[in-house]
């Protein structure tokens, strides 16, 4: 008995198993009580415990299940920040729930189980299952409000998501055809089916990251769902999708870097330009934030372009570090700004509805301003340092033209982020705000963290040493 319990193949799964058991326990408890406070605290505590269980790994490179499961500090880092994003959203999610909190939080924990699995998977089947686990969970979460708008958003999300699933399955089959395995690390594959797999998998996984041309669902879904859920959709699940893209395209397609490079450069340029220009003319606050997260996804996938397009080791290290750092910062700046929408007591929040909040609550206005400056990449916020490393990797990878396009885009984005700031400090007494602690607390926390996280640059050597856990061979 003892032998099985300490068998490394099983201990590797402890965090997932633990969270799964808690989630089922919650569903059972639903017969007794519907108090959201209890479920919120259980969810938070169990997520914290799972973090402790995860940190126990601390190994650089161990693989299980025939190479399908790779325990590395790199995966661990992403697993941890995805849990952090769940923790961040959990608190404010509880307060907005009307009924059946146990179902919500159980689903929430299941999503986390899938996320942790995804962080360590090196096999397309594993990744697909984990990815679907997250997708199905978030379909349920986004439909949770039961109003017409929630259902509409969820339906859009669901139907487009299903199509993406189809693409992933088809892409995986082509991948298998080319390589003879589902493992991401494989021998030299055949070119024809591999390129088809590249396109199909790109469409499937890129869907979740809302890359152009698979972006429109995101705007509608973020707009329609409740604020905590849209915060979660745009932070936690986006980081997951980004991580999967890194794994699949940088490890799985390591023999086809030229094609990966061209694909991602084109998509990245189109995505960020589209996102920024669409956000410029958008008056609805949530839709504006949605377009801005599309643009941010465009910056994120520049990392894939750098790694596939340049042979410099330094560029590789900095790019992956930028990916890690950007993801961490992204959770707070994006999650925080979506949660802040809850401050306005309205269904469809316009940017102008924030008028006068700077006078009623300077704390709110300053915090949201910090998040906006961070999204725009203005120092001394963490968002700047994330962009700094991103553009450093582009320059050291000799991709100056891509850096110029990216940086011009980030200069354009300043327009709509600053509009939010100027609006907040206008004088207007007619707007009503909900400045209770569930709205204020996460926002202020996010603002403080976006400043504090700038100091992560002190830990560059430690963090950059784990980038090899990505699994890219020959670097």
């Amino acid at each position, binding site marked *: 008995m003892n032998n099985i319990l300490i068998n490394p193949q099983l201990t590797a799964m402890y965090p997932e198993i633990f969270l799964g058991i808690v989630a089922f326990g919650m569903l059972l408890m639903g017969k007794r009580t519907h108090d959201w406070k209890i479920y919120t605290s259980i969810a938070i505590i169990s997520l914290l415990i799972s973090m402790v269980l995860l940190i126990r790994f601390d190994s650089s490179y161990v693989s299980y299940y025939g190479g399908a499961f790779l325990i590395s500090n790199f995966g661990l880092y992403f697993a941890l920040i995805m849990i952090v994003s769940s923790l961040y959203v959990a608190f404010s999610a509880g307060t907005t729930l009307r009924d059946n909190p146990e179902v919500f939080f159980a689903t929430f924990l299941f999503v986390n189980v899938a996320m942790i699995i995804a962080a360590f998977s090196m096999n397309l089947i594993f990744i697909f299952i984990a990815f679907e686990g997250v997708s199905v969970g978030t379909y349920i979460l986004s439909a949770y409000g039961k109003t017409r708008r929630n259902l509409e958003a969820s339906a859009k999300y669901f139907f487009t998501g299903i199509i993406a699933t189809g693409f992933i399955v088809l892409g995986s089959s082509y991948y298998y055809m080319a390589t003879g395995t589902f493992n991401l690390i494989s021998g030299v594959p055949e070119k024809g089916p591999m390129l088809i797999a590249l396109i199909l998998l790109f469409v499937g996984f890129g869907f979740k990251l809302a890359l152009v041309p698979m972006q429109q669902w995101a705007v509608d879904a973020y707009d329609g769902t409740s604020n905590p859920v849209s915060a979660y959709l745009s932070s936690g699940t986006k980081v997951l999708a980004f991580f999967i893209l890194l794994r699949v395209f940088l490890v799985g397609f390591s023999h086809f870097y030229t094609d990966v490079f061209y694909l991602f450069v084109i998509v990245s340029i189109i995505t960020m330009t589209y996102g920024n220009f669409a956000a410029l003319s958008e008056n609805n606050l949530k839709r504006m934030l949605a377009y801005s997260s599309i643009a941010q996804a465009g910056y994120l996938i520049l990392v894939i372009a750098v790694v596939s397009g340049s042979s410099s080791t330094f560029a590789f290290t900095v790019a992956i570090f930028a990916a890690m750092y950007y993801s961490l910062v992204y959770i707070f700046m994006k999650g925080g700004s979506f949660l802040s929408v809850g401050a306005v007591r309205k269904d469809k929040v316009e940017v102008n509805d924030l008028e006068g909040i700077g006078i009623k609550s300077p704390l709110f206005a300053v915090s949201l301003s910090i998040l906006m400056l961070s999204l725009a990449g203005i120092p001394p916020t963490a968002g*700047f340092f994330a962009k700094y490393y991103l553009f450093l990797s582009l320059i050291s990878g000799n991709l100056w033209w891509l850096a110029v396009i990216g940086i011009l885009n*980030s200069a354009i984005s300043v327009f709509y982020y600053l509009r939010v700031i100027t609006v907040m400090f206008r004088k207007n007494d007619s707007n009503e705000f909900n400045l209770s602690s569930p709205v204020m607390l996460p926002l202020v926390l996010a603002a403080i963290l976006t400043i504090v996280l700038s100091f992560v640059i002190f830990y560059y050597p430690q963090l950059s040493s784990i980038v090899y856990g990505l699994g890219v061979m020959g670097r």
Partner: protein
Amino acid sequence: MFIIAIFLLLILFAILSFAIKESSWKIATLESLLILILTMVYGILRFTGYNGGFMSSYSYAIDTSIGISFTVGVSALSMALLFLSAVIMFIAIFVSGREKFDRSFYGLMLTTELGLYGLLISRNFLFFYVFWEAIIIPVFMLISIYGGAGKEKAALKFFVYTQIGSVFLLLSILTLFSFYGTANHVFTLNMSKLLDSSFIIKYISEPQPFWTDFLLFGFFFSFLVKMPSFPLHSWLPDAYTSAPYPVSIVLAGAISLMGGYGFFAVLLPIAPVIGSGIAWAIIILGIFSLVYFALVAMFQTDMKRMMAYASAASMGFISISLGIGILSTGYIAYLAVSGGIFQILAHGLIMGLVFSSLYIIKNTSGSQSNLTLSGLFREMPIISTFFLAGIMASLGLPGLAGFIAEASIVLASYQVIGYIIFFIIFGMIITASYHVWTVQKSLNGPYNENLGKLKDGTMMEIAVLSFLFIIILILGIYPSLFYHMILVYVKGVF
């Protein structure tokens, strides 16, 4: 460590100003006065008998593997500009006592000063860039919250223009960093190491000339936006006009110094890399700015807008001086470049005097248009005198600070570009003409009785403006006070 102590004190002061509710104006004034005094003491202690290089060098390594460290060093150039920013911030905060601004206004003003100090003392490119950018945020807030008509549009325009400039600055810094790392296998962001023309020629210009152009484009673009120079200036009139007066003083006196500082701290050390084509382009841009802005200013009736253009016009001299410095060698180059640096200092102080006296005029009479104002000498003799003094200094009257700078630049220019200096002279003549014309219309002539009875400035205001005027006068009569150490610095860099 002295300068770091001043810097830390500024952080404390900025926080204090945000925190204390009561009598925020008094506190902020005292704070900025204290900073000014400390800066002067620092300058006297460290810069008597200055012989080049950086004083108070200090470095705290944050991350050696990627070259980030908090490196501090003060050259004569930084010292002159530190003095200028301390004076300007003190004046701006002091005169703002005429209107009731709240505590966050003063907090933001001191944050701006903090950013300027950080920029001027940093010798690490990351911190240079962080402060370069960080200055924009408080200024943006100051314009967009406390400004007049069209404040939001003006603030946004200001931010976006300077932001587009800064991102190219970032790309240039990253390029230098990346090439240095590849060449020497050491990653550093130390400005003294990266701004080394022999390194750039050997590892960038010769193997990959494209990257040199890329690098120089980024630097020039971002500095020219801040100056502002001719094609990149359209944020200027709106920002100056919409900003509240104290912020206009800061914009004209302190924010414009950033472009000049970039020219002489970043581009001057790598001057051998800059080709003569680029140098000519800079000179022509400078001359064009000078003439064009002077002509535009001539047709303004709003005096604040007019002086905004006048300020931009005199920044044209700085572009000219850098271009001349690159094209020439030896004594002529020293003369041109020192004149350029002196011009930043003189221009800032003069604009401080002009805008603060204009502010008092606007605040008492309610008008800043030279159509309604006339004969102000009768009602406000003392403030009118200060305004006249500022205008005279601005047009380059001998004996005042502006003359020294313009004379050295024009003298040096003649040796290099010959008769093309006719255009510079032409710009100076236009400048003189509309300056005199403005004075004639607003200060002289019959008094416009519709303005009613006006009160002259208070004793305190007169004292502070006299202090500012005396500095301008001293720098005009005895320029070696700064000119000498600037010359030593320039000789060391070239």
